[in-house]
């Protein structure tokens, strides 16, 4: 018998489902950690799962951790010849455990698609990211209540976008309609928590149709437009408030820039990669002291330019922003990237 690709998942069954899945996978779900904060955490019995709002931080670090070891090394003195030093270098394992991200949003999935275009498409592939990505199943919830900072529909995704997800859930009465998008998604539907959907399919259809988020930004021609503005004072003006804190990049599902540093402990140590941010002065600072992006104007120009100009030019039109609005919500000086793009269109 072929497993149907559409099933019903009762809300009350979710804890037992996650517990069972936890026996075979690492399972991450949005967990309430304070009155105002919901974060993806590894599921444990008894935590409070929150599925009706966007998480405070995106799912990115589950596949692209904030810090990870790439290599380890050991220097050894040759006992026969103390002048001679031997070096051994080992790669960190690239075998990831099977993982489920339960309760992602279409913008989370889109974030990973942006990462995929850089990390897995070649010519050089990132083996650490790739292995984790391959081993991860993304279960996405459609957004029945987009927030006023959400603008996913403006950047080519949307609250019911299935791309990049393996299984999608439409919120309906007492639970969710579950639809498998990929084989990995189908595999999950085999769990007994998923039952026949029957007449609920129609309700889900209506629910999906009821989800409305009008595109609010006209990004037509914006890649070229931003290039035209490159040498103008536009960037100085729009970035005047920025305090270069980097919050926008750390909470961004599509920001992937990283640093590579060595951590030594005596004769051995590790080479690690950590998230970095183009909003920091040090990011492009050269050993000579020269800095091609000395002020926040150039740095802000790079952040917006990378997402809305360079990335779409390099990757067949794919905008490097998923419209999640986190940079808008988290910016201490209320810089709104939507407003900057609108002004860019009108400038000059």
């Amino acid at each position, binding site marked *: 018998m072929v497993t149907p690709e559409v099933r019903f998942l009762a809300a009350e069954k979710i804890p037992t489902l996650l517990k069972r899945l936890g026996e075979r996978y690492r399972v991450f779900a949005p967990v309430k950690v304070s009155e105002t904060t919901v974060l993806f955490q590894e599921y444990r019995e008894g935590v409070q799962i929150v599925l009706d709002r966007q998480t405070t931080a995106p799912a990115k670090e589950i596949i692209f951790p904030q810090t990870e070891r790439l290599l380890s090394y050991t220097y050894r003195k040759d006992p026969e010849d103390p002048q001679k030093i031997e070096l051994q*270098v080992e790669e960190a394992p690239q075998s990831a455990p099977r993982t489920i991200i339960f309760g992602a949003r279409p913008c989370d999935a889109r974030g990973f698609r942006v990462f995929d275009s850089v990390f897995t498409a070649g010519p050089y592939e990132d083996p650490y990211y790739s292995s984790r990505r391959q081993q991860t199943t993304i279960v996405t919830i459609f957004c029945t209540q987009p927030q006023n900072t959400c603008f996913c529909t403006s950047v080519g995704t949307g609250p019911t976008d299935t791309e990049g997800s393996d299984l999608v859930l439409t919120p309906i009465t007492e639970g969710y309609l579950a639809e498998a998008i990929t084989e990995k998604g189908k595999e999950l539907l085999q769990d007994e928590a998923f039952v026949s959907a029957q007449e609920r399919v129609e309700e889900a259809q209506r629910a999906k149709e009821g989800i409305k988020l009008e595109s609010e930004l006209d990004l037509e021609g914006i890649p070229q437009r931003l*290039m035209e503005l*490159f040498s103008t004072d536009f960037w100085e003006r729009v970035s005047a408030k920025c305090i270069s804190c980097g919050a926008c990049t750390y909470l961004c599902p599509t920001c992937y820039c*990283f*640093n590579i540093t060595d951590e030594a402990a005596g004769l051995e*140590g590790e080479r690690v990669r950590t998230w970095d941010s183009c909003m920091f002065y040090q990011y492009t600072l050269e050993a000579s002291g020269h800095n091609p992006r000395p002020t926040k104007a150039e740095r802000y120009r790079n952040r917006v330019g990378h997402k809305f*100009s360079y990335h779409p*030019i*390099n990757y067949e039109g794919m905008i490097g922003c998923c419209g999640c609005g986190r940079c808008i919500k988290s910016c201490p000086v209320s810089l709104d990237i939507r407003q900057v793009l609108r002004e860019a269109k009108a400038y000059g």
Partner: protein
Amino acid sequence: MASIPNPYLPQIGTVVKVIQETSNIKSLQVVLNDQERMNSFRFEPGQVAQLSVFGVGEATFVINSPPTRTEHLQFSVMRAGEVTARIHQLKEGDPIGVRGPLGNWFPYEEMKGKDILFIGGGIGMAPLRTLLLFMLDNRSDYGKITLLYGARTPDDLCYKEELQQWGQRDDMELILTVDREFPGWEKKVGLVPNVLRELAPSPKDKVAITCGPPIMIRFTLQALAELGFGDEQVVTTLERRMKCGVGLCGRCNIGTKYVCADGPVFTLAQLKELPPEL
């Protein structure tokens, strides 16, 4: 799962020779420990590699020995930061990490049959050395070869022994200059762009390849334009702070281009396509 080649994993090599070029520049000759890998190490003139001193980190250097001479890989390192300071402490027999070859290379195919004008300043001689030796090893493919090389002082010129040899060859011309008069210095005195103006080479059937400190490049490009060199006839290399070296970490972009993966070699025509963020 099929294993993906790890772009972050350096090969382990051994420093076989250290040459003190100037007071703050050393050249290291390196062989990879794995003999087979050393034999099969293929690269093009102008490509770079990341050298690793584990515990401190990596930095990018052009492979300045040409692919036509395969007994070792040579890198010239100016002491400027933490990593380069550590590289300067390495001695013969010490291990070193090598990740490469990376990046693009000089368009030497398109230069065939043309006259070649190298214009170098200071440590900028390193990439030029690769291409010059490569061309000397394929001498009949190219027309007249001229090297104009300058530094602040006579001591700041790299590859002094080779400069002597090149000066004696009759199949190339060598012009050396230093910024001001020095006792015993009998060659030219003056900044590279000014000496270039004085030499006034004709742009006809010529390619100019220039590497050096940013300020020298800026004025050299000006001088070349004044002499009538077209943007397609001028080739240079860019430097940018790098980490991954393979277009993944996002660090080295100038607009849509990554200096590590799309560069470091650009024609002036290509440079002019990039947004001004040098």
